[in-house]
């Protein structure tokens, strides 16, 4: 008899018996009772129960996997792994889920693509790769097996630039973890996106400790305490701009749940990320410190003379930088305002020797 059936029979003999995903086995007055959504059997001896369970092999291996392999030691790991294969969907039986698992069930987590499959013993196997490479052959990708290998993969973007934000929407590809077990899958996911699983789990449990802008900047001290002075009781437009700059889905894969304060939502969308962002991150705080200083300046009226195309070109340059497109603009594509030669022409024509646009000094010299 398979080990998992022995384990199940042992568990059924204890206390309230076994109950998971539609399988119920318990000891009653006249032997064991076995129940699945499609069958009920009563009055079974221990050996008859073992035989009967063989007819419900998928329920038995499913129980074994969740009870003995994954276990309850980490509720957040268990919840995440169940989410990956849709185990908590009430409208799907274990046999139907097993059919899907044999083909592979796919999930996305930020820029990660997880595929869970099944072997003959009901063990799950997890494959992890970049979401943009879901269809690429294994041979085209570098293979990794250790969760901590993700640390290096997460450090630099596709162009070799340092990624200061692990949840930045710029994870480089080219790699695959072809066969992780459940524990290592969660470790690897947590290395790519630290604390994403516990925060997601707390959100599901209704205990996520969202800290809004006002609370988070309120506890800053030292060089960051200045950010408090940016709130001047005149609305939250400045925080809308921060969120639009830093927290948009194009920049960060977390779903922003923090708002201006408890009672005031920001006007920009928090995004569609799989896992939540519970407070302004250190990057937002550091950038906001700079913006606090910059936004303390008063506006001045400058007079520049630009052709309509020059005005549009300046706008195109800002757009290209903001969307990180400057490297994508071809060297000879002089039709793009943010093309290097176009920008150099603009500088040659409009800047004086001190770098002033149209020769207009930044500070009033009169």
């Amino acid at each position, binding site marked *: 008899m398979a080990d998992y059936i022995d384990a199940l029979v042992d568990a059924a003999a204890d206390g309230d018996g076994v109950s998971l995903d539609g399988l119920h086995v318990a000891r009653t007055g006249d032997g064991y009772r076995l129940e699945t959504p499609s069958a009920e059997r009563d009055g079974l001896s221990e050996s008859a129960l073992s035989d009967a369970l063989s007819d419900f092999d998928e329920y038995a291996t499913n129980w074994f996997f969740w009870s003995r392999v994954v276990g309850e030691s980490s509720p957040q790991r268990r919840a995440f792994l169940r989410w990956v294969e849709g185990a908590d969907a009430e409208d799907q039986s274990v046999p139907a889920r097993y059919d899907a698992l044999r083909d592979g069930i796919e999930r996305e987590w930020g820029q990660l693509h997880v595929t869970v499959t099944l072997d003959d013993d009901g063990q799950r196997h997890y494959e992890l790769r970049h979401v943009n490479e879901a269809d690429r052959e294994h041979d085209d990708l570098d293979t990794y097996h250790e969760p901590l290998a993700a640390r290096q993969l997460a450090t*630099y973007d596709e162009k070799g630039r340092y990624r*200061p*934000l*692990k*949840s930045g929407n710029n994870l480089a590809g080219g790699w695959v973890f072809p066969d992780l077990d459940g524990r290592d899958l969660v470790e690897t996911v947590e290395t790519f996106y630290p604390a994403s699983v516990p925060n997601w789990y707390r959100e599901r449990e209704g205990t996520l400790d969202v800290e809004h802008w006002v609370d988070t900047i309120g506890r800053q001290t030292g060089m960051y305490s200045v950010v408090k002075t940016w709130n001047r009781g005149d609305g939250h437009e400045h925080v809308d701009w921060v969120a639009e700059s830093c927290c948009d889905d194009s920049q960060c894969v977390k779903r922003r749940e923090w708002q201006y304060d408890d009672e005031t939502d920001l006007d920009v969308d928090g995004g569609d990320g799989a896992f939540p962002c519970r407070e302004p991150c250190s990057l937002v705080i550091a950038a906001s410190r700079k913006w606090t200083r910059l936004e303390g300046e008063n506006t001045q009226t400058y007079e520049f003379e630009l052709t309509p195309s020059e005005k549009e070109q300046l706008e195109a340059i800002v757009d290209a930088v903001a969307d990180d497109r400057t490297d994508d603009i071809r060297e000879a594509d002089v039709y793009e305002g943010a093309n290097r030669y176009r920008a150099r022409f603009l500088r040659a024509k409009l800047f004086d020797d001190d770098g002033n646009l149209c020769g207009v000094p930044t500070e009033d010299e009169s």
Partner: protein
Amino acid sequence: MQALVIVAHGSHLNPDSSTPTYDHADTIREVGAFDEVRTGFWKEEPSIREVLRTVESDEVYVVPLFISEGYFTEQVIPRELRLDGWDVADWDSDGLSATHVTLPAGDVPEKTVHYCGPVGTHEAMTDVIVRRAESVTEDPDVGDGFGLAVVGHGTERNENSAKAIEYHAQRVRDMDRFDEVQALYMDEDPEVDDVTDYFDADDIVVVPLFVADGFHTQEDIPEDMGLTDDYRTGYDVPTEVDGHRIWYAGAVGTEGLMADVVLERAADAGADIGDALEVVRERTRKTPMAGD
């Protein structure tokens, strides 16, 4: 179950800032002294705010990978960890003597958190400075004929910073191993710029007491000492300056033996680490012992 959590500063700009933290965490993970080893950062992720929720164990030892007691160890880290009832007076420290406190943390009320003093003020740090000198000279017996300079920020930002430098300089001096030992500073006298003025020895090992290599250790100090006019062009080890050979070691925190100090901090706070200290001391040695 017991977990080790190493907390460090990290950087938005410099990928090397967190490297020593990860390296020491890996070293300790490999010896298996803890069921879990995690890292948390002020500027990277997981943030110190969220690191405790990544831990499964019920006993958590938090060791700050910082050089001195001060703003980060006394204010920022306890606040971000949400240590309930934290009072810096509980450390009862003279600026060098913080060991640990045991407190609950609001973020994970079911766990016990042992919050340790920084690695930089632990007496075992002195051995790391000496090991760093051995590594950079590739001589396990370095000392005779050599001077050793321990370099720190100075007191401009934190008076305890200089205390840690003086403390370790004195302890190395007491070993009677190097011909001369001198504490030097970046922003006050005696200044690292004038390093050769403070030594008679031909050979001087210079060890900056910093956690990670970055702007100060890779750019400022090499240029200030005259190892190079432009840090981008690099420098030799040793480099001849004013008739002395300067063996510049870079940040002491990159030395593998730092993992030993992290373990010492946790063990002092009650962690059961078995023979991990002995194993780490041997595994992190780059220079063979005499007779090996």
